[in-house]
């Protein structure tokens, strides 16, 4: 088959990951599968420790030493895991990462201009002045009009929101095809959050960028993403069209996440999901990882690990998905 338009750009298939923790390999990701098509925005939602950031690091090949990986990651049909050297570097230029906290993810002792143009100058042999001109152009595109001046400044002289725009602009300079946005707004205040989200959405429609958007906020994901995958304890528990997740969730955890969303202030989250979130490291080997916190738990839930069951155009990892269908959307706000 040869359908370049319909074949997914990024395809993660049964990704598993073990990390070295205190000298022992512990499983942090199990059976993670999803895909991102050209121009599509996909959300990856979960609490901290659910494995969503590790998924991003696996995709960008930024895993810590001693990590063991299973399954496959394919970008544009090519196997990512086997890349090395120049091929890996050019792959990384096509898959750009927008990190959570620009304050620590941009070298504080180098000028903004130096940061932005570094890849162009070192990997693409663009001359400093030309690279600078392109950087100014790109800054204008992300809503920073006085780019010339900004290039001469140091990161600590810029606000967090500005710096995140700088980070986004710098990723665009290499004309990437996929943007991995790892909680790009978490470190910012609420107004700036909205601006950055708007910017990402705009870039996606203007440039046809694919975006994998990582967040802990179900509704934030729904605002920009076509489809969203919900992760819990190192597994994807539900993949659906984003707009369906809040009102008609299939998995009890998705329902709880939707209900947990505070109405006024996103920075101070209510803990409406009862119990302590299980980190990916603590997940049981048999039975559903969410069983301990699930209000709909049954004996069958703890006897065998549930698999992703196709349902409603998506899939959910719950043995009771048929029984619970249609009953989860009405979970009241806590």
């Amino acid at each position, binding site marked *: 088959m040869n359908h370049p338009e319909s074949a997914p750009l990024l395809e993660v298939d049964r990704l598993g990951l073990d990390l070295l923790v205190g000298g022992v390999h512990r499983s942090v990701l199990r059976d993670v599968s999803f895909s991102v098509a050209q121009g599509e925005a996909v959300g990856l939602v979960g609490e901290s420790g659910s494995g969503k950031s590790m998924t991003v690091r696996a995709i*960008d090949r*930024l895993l810590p030493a001693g990590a063991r990986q299973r399954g496959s990651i394919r970008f544009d049909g090519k196997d990512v895991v086997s890349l090395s050297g120049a091929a*890996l*570097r*050019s*792959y*990384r*230029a096509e898959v*750009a*990462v927008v*990190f959570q*906290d620009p304050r*620590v*993810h*941009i*070298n*504080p*002792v*180098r000028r903004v201009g130096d940061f932005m143009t*570094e*890849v162009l100058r*070192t*990997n693409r042999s663009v001359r400093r002045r030309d690279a600078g001109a392109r950087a100014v152009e790109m800054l204008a595109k992300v809503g920073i009009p006085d780019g010339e001046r900004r290039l001469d400044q*140091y990161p*600590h002289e810029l606000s967090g929101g500005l710096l995140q725009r700088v980070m986004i602009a*710098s*990723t665009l300079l*290499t004309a990437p095809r996929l943007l991995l946005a790892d909680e790009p707004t978490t470190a910012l205040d609420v107004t700036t959050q909205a601006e950055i989200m708007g910017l990402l959405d705009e870039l996606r429609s203007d440039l046809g960028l694919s975006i994998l958007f990582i967040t802990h906020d179900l509704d934030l994901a729904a605002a920009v993403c076509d489809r969203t995958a919900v992760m819990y304890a190192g597994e994807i528990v539900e993949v659906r069209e984003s707009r369906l997740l809040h009102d008609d969730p299939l998995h009890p955890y998705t329902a709880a996440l939707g209900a947990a969303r505070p109405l006024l202030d996103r920075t101070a989250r209510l803990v409406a999901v009862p119990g302590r979130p299980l980190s990916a490291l603590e997940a049981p080997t048999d039975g559903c990882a969410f069983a301990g916190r699930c209000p709909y738990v049954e004996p069958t839930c703890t006897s065998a690990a549930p698999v992703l069951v196709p349902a409603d155009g998506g899939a959910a990892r719950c043995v009771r998905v048929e029984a619970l269908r249609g009953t989860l959307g009405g979970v009241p706000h806590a």
Partner: protein
Amino acid sequence: MRIGYLLRRVAMLAVTLLVASFVIFAATYVAPGNPLAALSGGKSLSPEAQTALERRYHLDEPFLAQYWHWLSGAVRGDLGVSIPLHEDVSTLIADRAWITLSLVLYAAVIIVILGIGLGLLAGLRPGWIDSSVLVISSMAAAVPAFVAAIVLIAVFAVSLGWFPTIGTGDGFLGHLEHLTLPAVALALSSVAVVARVTRTAIREEVAREHVQTAISRGIPQHLVVTRHVLRNAAIPITTVTGVTIASLIAISSVVETSFGLNGLGQYLVKSAQGKDIAVVQGISLVLVVAFVLVNLVVDTMYAVLDPRVELGARAA
């Protein structure tokens, strides 16, 4: 801006030197005993001779006037006269300063090359290189300069006969040969300290998020190391190396004594024992000035290396 930071440092340096010079002068002024007693060799002087000598050395004037005489002289390079030796303190110091200066410089070169070099090696090459540098530096850091000196003399000068034991030699190569063991003794524990700090700085920087960003952007490995890891680790490394080298200025007296080198430090100690107040004052002032100046250089380098300098005080 950074210029403001440096101007403040220079102003503080001036105040420090002023207060330090006052303390040095006052400390020796309150010393019990008449400074003229050393001159007369214990014999009692005639009142006329006493008065004449007091006038000559400004001893008849009030304390602040004496301080002013001394300080204004010091600024012009005149540190007074050694009463027991009848010689200009400045001349006495100038004759010996070059030994201390060459010793400290030699040791500084050793520290920079070996200390930073080993630290970089250990920081960038985990495994057996790292472990051996760690073990050796932990042991070397515990060896004080005077123990290092006697061990080096016993092994390399006496048993093996590779190096001369005493004196300063002639010509550049002669100096180099004679000053090698002293410089190594002086540098040894500092090399260890600098190596460890360098290693830690590299390790911390490698783990920083911005390095991950650079890798994720496809910057080649060697550029990530030089432009991000080394560039940023240079800030703590320079600071610690500079401060360590500054501390050598005082410790050189120990090595000078061990190797019988006629430098400033050894002369300070001798003069203190002999209560030659003018010389003690003069050398103290010179050493404090040198110490403070090296620290100013460190501050300047820090300001050059770190654009965030206004945000906080010096890292070390």
